[in-house]
């Protein structure tokens, strides 16, 4: 039962991890940019949810769409104003830009919110479910359901809508897409906005499960790295596999080595994977 409990914990955690990484993977896959802002965007979403709950008493789960919309607008503006200008530049340039933007956002958050940890404490607490000896906290279960629903929504959006098809077309061949009349610049902005929206939504879910602080941003960014490399870059199912795998590995390693070393384990995994299987579990694909 202990192992089953750990597995369930891992799956629940993994659902949230997938949601954290899917926006990062989308931006990397389509824009070919490593978005170092991603961790800070997640935390920004968490703070929005925290303040909404604290002052306006809005349930964080109901706040998810609001956070997504807010962060979408922010991401859209950032891409349009700052990042579009360096699209197609060498890696060093785009990376330095997102690092600079992240320094800005991260330190502004520290100045605005202070570095101490806060947490959304739901009242009344939702309690937990007992499924034949396996205990699942209900708030985590709802978070996981929300995370999976959001990923499904993104997948459907990419597969089924005109905008989604345009994003995929730009990913496949920018110039051909341009010739077909797609405004590449605004598609980039929408893609980045979607990535930020997923980050914001993941952030509001995160605030229910974990204490938040601007300091958490870097750890979350590291997790997004690991998940993208683990699952294989550039597809929604890949991110799902990567996120769930990382969740399970982290909860088993917490059992074996103690919870404080789960980060060490995930980075060891990252380096070993990059050395021996850089294409990840699912192989390298593209968003389709």
């Amino acid at each position: 039962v202990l192992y089953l409990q750990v597995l369930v914990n891992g799956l629940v955690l993994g659902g949230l991890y997938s949601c954290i990484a899917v926006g990062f993977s989308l931006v990397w896959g389509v824009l070919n940019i490593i978005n170092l802002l991603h961790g800070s965007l997640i935390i920004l979403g968490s703070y929005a949810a925290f303040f909404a709950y604290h002052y306006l008493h809005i349930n964080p789960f109901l706040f998810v769409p609001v956070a997504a919309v807010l962060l979408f607008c922010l991401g859209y503006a950032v891409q349009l104003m700052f990042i579009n200008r360096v699209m197609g530049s060498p890696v060093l340039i785009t990376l330095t830009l997102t690092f600079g933007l992240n320094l800005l956002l991260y330190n502004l958050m520290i100045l605005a919110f202070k570095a101490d940890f806060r947490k959304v404490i739901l009242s009344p607490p939702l309690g937990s479910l007992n499924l034949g000896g396996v205990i699942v906290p209900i708030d985590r279960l709802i978070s996981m359901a929300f995370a999976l629903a959001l990923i499904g929504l993104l997948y459907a959006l990419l597969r089924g809508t005109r905008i989604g098809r345009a994003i995929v077309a730009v990913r496949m061949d920018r110039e051909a897409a341009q010739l077909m009349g797609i405004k590449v610049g605004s598609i980039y902005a929408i893609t980045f906005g979607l990535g930020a929206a997923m980050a914001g939504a993941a952030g509001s879910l995160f605030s229910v499960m974990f204490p938040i602080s601007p300091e958490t941003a870097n750890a979350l960014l590291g997790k997004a790295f690991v998940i993208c490399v683990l699952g294989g870059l550039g597809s929604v199912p890949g991110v799902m596999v990567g996120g769930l795998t990382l969740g399970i590995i982290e909860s088993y390693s917490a059992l074996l080595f103690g919870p404080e070393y789960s980060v060490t384990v995930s980075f060891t995994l990252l380096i070993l994977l990059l050395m021996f299987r850089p294409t990840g579990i699912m192989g390298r694909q593209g968003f389709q």
Partner: protein
Amino acid sequence: MTRLIALAAVVALLALPAIADNYVLRLATTMLMYGALALGWNFIGGFAGYPSFATAAFFGLGAYTVAMLIKVLPIYATFGVALVLGTVMAFVVGLVTLRISGMFFVIFGFGLSELMRELLVWWEITQTHTMGRYVFVPFDTTLIYEHLLGLAVLVFLVGWLIRRSRLGVALLIIGDDETMARQAGINVPFAKIAMFVVSSVFMTIVGAVMAPRFGYLTPNFAFNPLISFQVVIMALLGGMQRLWGPLLGVIPLVLLSELLQVRFPFWYSVLLGLIFMVIVYFLPRGVTGLVEDIWARLRQPLSPRSSTDAVNDAWGGLSISLQGIAGFVESLWLRLVRRQPTGES
């Protein structure tokens, strides 16, 4: 002529400890540290175009080797150990570059620094039950300064020799097109690994020499990813086309960050982010690139049409400021919002 200037600069720097006060000497030490790191980084990032963010991993490795062994070994022996460890790790990283490149190599560099930091934290907590180490040795600022100066000169000379050698030409071709390099009969694995080992060993030794300067080290400080980024931004600002290019970025950025840290301690990191953005937008090819562009423009026959065609970002920024503030705001608006370089070409 250039050699004479270089020689004069080195002599002047040698004489600095005798005339300057302690504050200036410390500032000059920081400059030399970043100078040596940026010159070393340029072997990887500039010559062969590999976006390496593993600088902090090597720097921290050197610093922490000294910090951990200083109680049991004489200081030069600890430098020797750092040298060996740095070489081994550089060899392994070099092997990795044979398999991955581009974005994945960027992630690898970050991941390596983070992993080293995490492993060190784990080791310190479980084995020694401490977090952070003091490095107290009779190794004062002047001595550190002289060692770093020697290192910087050595890196420069090695870079100069590599540039003139077959290996240097091979690296340039690899940076251009790796498949072509392989077709041309260049031993690509050897060239890449050699480049990594040379470059990273210098970074490790710089870290080792700087350890007594810091006095107190924690894993978070020694393996700070900001070190990697600052080295990259300095090389970017200076320009990577020339061997001495990165030095032109080191001097202004060290001075600027010193000034900002003193004046606006709380806003320092925010302002640093702004500086990164300004450099990316207005000087994407660095100071040497800017000088080259201006030179090319001056040599062009003056005709209004052709000169507007040749406007590049940096020069465009300068010419904007000639139109007054209104013109500046207007064109900034155009450049930020309306112009989308991806939508037109």
